[in-house]
Structure formats: structure tokens, C-alpha cells
């Protein structure tokens, strides 16, 4: 090779050296920085034996159910955008770390039935893989780089955002509370409710392609939990009308038939439906479909009271004879 080519190569190497250095530094820092994913993994491995109630689900459960209200040994493995398929993977992967588990609460909502993590926020798959060490979180079709680098797999934006939260003192956005749940403090304004209601409802109804897979898998998971004598509770968390009004009748129909199938397939489970929310006023919400801190405490108390009323042997106690949209009044 002539000198010009060598000069070009050296120029390219010198130019890109800082870029590679920054990539390596970001990768190392991102992998070692504590966040909800790594915290939950560590908690399950180190203190899993202390957990008897596990809460699973998406942001509705993450922000809406306060584990400490339910009991001292409850822990939330719910995460924003977490679909039911990921819930199953968590149960499967950490089953040996949870020998004393006696209750699993699944959050059933429009998004948990319809959306997969893949479509909702692809970067989260990388976090499940690298920070929560969830096997098969990343599809095998991903490239070598994606399978071996958090930065390449998740992308620069979420990694930088987590740094930003950490540095700007907004750690609660990247980090869950000690019981695994999240917290929103602010109360919703009407304009927030209007905007978020539309945004969330549109997003949640985008993709229904995986619903059948999700429901079929759910039955298998529930069977295996029941065999282990673990009580299974399905909960639909409250949402406001600002959200519900954008859920199309077609989607409602799909949800109802999906829920009907879930409950028919799993008669020994409990289903508590608070979706139409007749008890929590708007001041308990932070946006159209998420409870704030006060709402989460209030809702968790209601949930606890209702759970207490159900005798352990009773099957499907909250299903009304004429359908599934039975209200908790």
C-alpha cells in the first residue's frame, strides 16, 4: 500500500479513535449504572426468598400498585411497556429464586394484551437482556453487535436519557422504589389528560397481532402456577374517561372476548376489573391512564380489601353472570 493510503487510514483511525473511546466508555458506564432493571434482577437473586406476592405488568401496574400496601413481602416486577410475554419470561427465569411465592398478580390492560415490547419500545428488550439478564429477551435474529452491546442494541438515546436522569437528580425516572414499583407525584391537568389520553389510547391499539399468542401462553403459565399452588390474580387497573373514550368499540370487543377466553380457560383464577374506574377521582391520576402516588396508595388499599373478601377456594368470584365488564363498586 502506498503512503497516501496509509495516511488516509491513519487519519480515519485518529478521527474515529475518540468516537470508539466514547462508545466504550458509554457501554461500560451504562452496563454498570444501577437502574430499575439491574435493581430488580439483584433483588430477586439476593432477596427472592422473602417474596410471597409478585406483581407483574406494564406501567399501569408499575405506577398503580403499591406493593407495601398489599403486604410486606410483595414485590413489583412490573415495568413500563412490559407485555405479558415478558411477564412469563420473568416468572420462568426467576422461578428458582422465588421458592415462597404464593400469589402472582397479572395486570391486564389494553396495552398488555395488544402490544409487545418489541413494538412499543424496542430499546427495553436490550435492558431486559443486559441488565435483567432475561434469557431470549433479544431475538436471535439480532446481529452479533446487538447481542453483545447494550449501546448498539438499545441505541444512544435511551442510554443518554438514563445518564441525564441520574445527573439531573431525576433518578426516580430511571430507578424504581425499593419495592420495585414507580412513583408519579404530580396531579393531572385537563390538558394533560386530553393529550395523554389520546396518545396512549392510539399507541395501545396499534398492534393486535400478538394477542392470540399472548392469551395461549397465559393459559400455560397460569396452569403451571396453579400446579405449584400459587394463587393467580388478574387485575385491570383504573383509567380515566379521557383514555377510555379513545378506545374503539372494536378494540373493546376484542378485549372483552380476550378476557372472556382468559377467564374461561383459567377458572380457578381471580379477575378484578377496575378498568372503568368508578371510585377514583381525577386528582388520583397523573395522566389519562396512570395513577399518581396518592392514587396508587388508594387503589392498592381497595385492591387489598377486595382480595381479602375473596375466600381462597372461590373461583372467579368477580365475574358477573352477564359478562365480563363487572364493576368493582
Amino acid at each position: 500500500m502506498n503512503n497516501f493510503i496509509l495516511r488516509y487510514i491513519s487519519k480515519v483511525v485518529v478521527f474515529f479513535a475518540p468516537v470508539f473511546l466514547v462508545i466504550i466508555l458509554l457501554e461500560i458506564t451504562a452496563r454498570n449504572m444501577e437502574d430499575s432493571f439491574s435493581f430488580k434482577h439483584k433483588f430477586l437473586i439476593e432477596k427472592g426468598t422473602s417474596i410471597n406476592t409478585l406483581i407483574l405488568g406494564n406501567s399501569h401496574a408499575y405506577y398503580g400498585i403499591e406493593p407495601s400496601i398489599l403486604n410486606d413481602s410483595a414485590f413489583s416486577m412490573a415495568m413500563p411497556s412490559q407485555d405479558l410475554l415478558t411477564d412469563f419470561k420473568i416468572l420462568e427465569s426467576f422461578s428458582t429464586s422465588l421458592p415462597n411465592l404464593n400469589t402472582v398478580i397479572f395486570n391486564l390492560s389494553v396495552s398488555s394484551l395488544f402490544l409487545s415490547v418489541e413494538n412499543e419500545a424496542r430499546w427495553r428488550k436490550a435492558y431486559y437482556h443486559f441488565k435483567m439478564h432475561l434469557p431470549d429477551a433479544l431475538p436471535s435474529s439480532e446481529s452479533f453487535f446487538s447481542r453483545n452491546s447494550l449501546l448498539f442494541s438499545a441505541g444512544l438515546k435511551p442510554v443518554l436519557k438514563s445518564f441525564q436522569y441520574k445527573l439531573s437528580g431525576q433518578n426516580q425516572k430511571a430507578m424504581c422504589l425499593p419495592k420495585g414499583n414507580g412513583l408519579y407525584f404530580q396531579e393531572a391537568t385537563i390538558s394533560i389528560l386530553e393529550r395523554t389520553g389520546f396518545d396512549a389510547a392510539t399507541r395501545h391499539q396499534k398492534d393486535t397481532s400478538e394477542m392470540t399468542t399472548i392469551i395461549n401462553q397465559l393459559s400455560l403459565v397460569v396452569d403451571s402456577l396453579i400446579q405449584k399452588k400459587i394463587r393467580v390474580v388478574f387485575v385491570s387497573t383504573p383509567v380515566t374517561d379521557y383514555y377510555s373514550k379513545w378506545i374503539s368499540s372494536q378494540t373493546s370487543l376484542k378485549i372483552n372476548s380476550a378476557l372472556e377466553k382468559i377467564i374461561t380457560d383459567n377458572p380457578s383464577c381471580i379477575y378484578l376489573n377496575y378498568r372503568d374506574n368508578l371510585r377514583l377521582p381525577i386528582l388520583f391520576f397523573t395522566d389519562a391512564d396512570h395513577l399518581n402516588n396518592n392514587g396508587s396508595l388508594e387503589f392498592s388499599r381497595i385492591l387489598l380489601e377486595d382480595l381479602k373478601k375473596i375466600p381462597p377456594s372461590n373461583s372467579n368470584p368477580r365475574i358477573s353472570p352477564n359478562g365480563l365488564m363487572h364493576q368493582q363498586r
Partner: protein
Amino acid sequence: MLFNSIEFCLFLPIVFLLFWGVKPAGLKAQNWVLLASSYVFYGWWDVRFLGLIAFSSILDFTIGKQIFAAEDQRKRKLWLIVSLGVNLGLLATFKYYNFFIESISDAFSLFGDPMHLSGIEFILPVGISFYTFQTLSYSIDIYNKKIEPSDDLLSFLAFVSFFPQLVAGPIERASQLLPQFKTERNFNLSEAIDGSKQMIWGLFKKVAVADTCATLVNEIFNQSESLSSVSLVLGAILFSIQIYGDFSGYSDIAIGCARLFGINLMRNFAFPYLSRDIAEFWRRWHISLSTWFRDYVYIPLGGSRASLPRVVANTFIIFVLSGFWHGANWTFIFWGFLNALYFLPLLLLKRNRLHTNVVAENTLLPSIKEAAQIISTFAITALAWIFFRAENLSQAYHYIARMCTVHKLSIIDQSILAKAAPAIGLCVFMYCIEFIQRKENHGIESLFSKNKVIRHLFYYFLIFLIGYFSNGKTEFIYFQF
């Protein structure tokens, strides 16, 4: 393999080192490297596509020789027809078969006699329109005695499959590109450095600008029936920028990449959104396709020197053909037709070559008149792009009708407008940089040329934006054509 993938980031340096590493072994060895790497690049999508490109290349190589060797004009014509028939036949089969079947069925149903012809699910080979046109120009140029046929199959195969421009152009002419595969190539440091800069700028336009706009554009077009005119106008503007960023971004990467191998590809975009009229726009947009149609269709048909009705017909023919080249859909055909309508008055009034220089050539900013001309040209092209983007003519019609009606901003509009800031910011940034560089060949050719530190910081900033807005491996729009 996509330019905006990690695989390509590894592939390119390996090919570069191999290509220049085998230089002492001669031109043939370098062409082998290019051919092998181009086939790896293309086969990355689907190995089955390789058979088609190899067949098409060998066929035209053979036919080229036959055309040249044939003594009487009839035989020459016959061989040309074979070349045109096979190449266009393959293109028609893979790309247009189902469109023709559907159109015939629809036509029969108009007369109350529904006809049920079944379509076939073909996989459309990536870039088939691009390399078919490239090989066609080879046969036509030999027929027109503009070039002699290649006697070296290896260099011909490398010319047809040259990976930087294989899947989305620029559509090269054999007379311009083929000789570069037959002459010794010497590494040119400044060309390679500028080529690398051009690749970074192309990646920025594709990954940061086009892909960011794409998310919003998809949302707007999917919900166009519930949106107000403000959002719909925004959707049309952003799509115009998206398609420019996507396609010119690809061309910049392709041209920059070729320069690393000492090969010069033709310029494909010359800042078209700085055009002052539609004629200037078409001299600056997808130049390799426009000139292909001009040289191989428009001029043979008589061009603008024929009778008035013939000129009008020729203009419509090339624009409609150009639209049809993009895809088997009436929306593309109408897009071409609309552009012909825009162009024709300028041609008939002989005002189509009013603006052959760069806007604001000797001033810092354009005059108010020039600015108004640029904005109005952009507006009419954006209107035409609505047809290009729409699923069908009905959607385009409803989109435009709704765009022209005043509505109160709905909650959906507010949601979309709130998300638009990053896309608008990136578009404005790109537009400003290209305006500053309007006399150059690409967006960052001589930017900050006097200050190395600022220049390098700017490149790092671009790389940061590429990384920050990267949204996985998204395909280029023009791959589907």
C-alpha cells in the same frame, strides 16, 4: 446490506483494504475484489437475487457483442429488441405483473364483466429498476455506436454490480463508468477524505433527518382523515424532506463510498429544494434518472424540437414513464403526470432554462423574489409528493381536500405538533447547511474549511446526531423501486 448498518461499517473497511491491498497484483485482481464484494453486498438481502443480476449482466454482455458484430441494421435492431425485451420483461414480471393483472381486471369490471385474474406473489429484487436501466443504456449506446462493447467480462460484471450504486443508483452510463473499471486506479487522498465526509453527510440526512421525519409522516398519513389542515400541510412538507433526505442521503453515501475506490459516480442531487422553478428542480432532482429518460426516450422521440403536439406528448410521456418507473401504482403515474403539468408551461413559453446558475450566486442571501420562487417551487413539489406517498389516488385526493379546508386544531393535531419539534429542527439545520454549501457538490464539502478544530467538532456533532436519532436498521425508500 444496508449502508446504515453495523455490518456495512465492517464490510467497507475490509473491502477497502482488500481492494488497495491487491493493487500490485493488477487491475484484474481489484475487479475481482469489487465483483466478489458487490455480490456479497447484494446477496446479503437474498442470495436468489444474485442469479438474476448475473443473468442480466451476462445477457447484455453477450448481446452487446452481437449488436456490434452484426453487419446489417436489421440484425442490430433485432439484438437490441432482444436486450430490451428480456430486460424490460424481467422488470415487468417482477415489478409490474400484478399491477397489470389488477388493472385489466378493473377495466373489465367497468364494463360489467368482472374478470378474475390471479396475481403471483413475486419477491421484488432490490434495485432491479436501477441495474436494469444501467445495462439497458449499455446495449442502446452500442446500438447507437456511442461506445464499443466490452471485451472483458470481469470488468463488465463489476460495472453492473458495483455495490455502492447497485441498489439505488445513481444510474450510471456504461460510457462514463465502464472505462473506470478498465483503467488503472490510483488512490487520491483528498478524494478519499472528501468522499468520507460526503458519506457522513449522507448518513446524517438518512438516519437523522429522513428517519425522524418518517415517524411523524407515517402518523400523519395514517390518521389524515382526523387531522386539521395544519398537520396535513406539515405532513406534506416533512414527507418532501424525508424523501429528499432518504434518497439524496443514499446517493451521497454511494458517491462518497465509490470515491474511496478511486471511482467517480455522477452527481444525483444538486440541492433541488433551492430551485426557483420546476424546470430547475428537475435538473437538480434524481439527475441520473432524468437524464436517462432525456437521452433514451425524450430525444429519440423528437424532444422539444418536434411539432407542438409532439412536444406536449413527449413531455407527458417522459414524466409519466418516470412516475411509472417508481412503482406499479396509479399514484406514481399521477405524480409524473402532475409534474408534466407543472413543467409544460415553462417549456412552451421557453422559460425552462431561466435558472441555470446557483441561487444567490454572488450574494449571501437570496432576494425576496428568489426566496418566493424557492418557496413556491417547494410548495408545488410538496403537493405532488402527496400522490407519491399516498396508498392510492383516493387517499391523496382526500388528503389534499382536507388540507384545503379550515378546521379547528383537534387534540390529535396538538399531539402531533408537540412531537414535531425535533424533526423540524433537523430539517431546518440540514436546509441551512445545504444553502451555505449550495455552490459545492455536497452538503459539507467546504464547510469550516479554514478552521480544522471547528470542522472536526462539526463532524463529531453530525456523528452524535446520527447515533442519537438512529432508530435501528431502516431501509431506504428507493430500495422498493
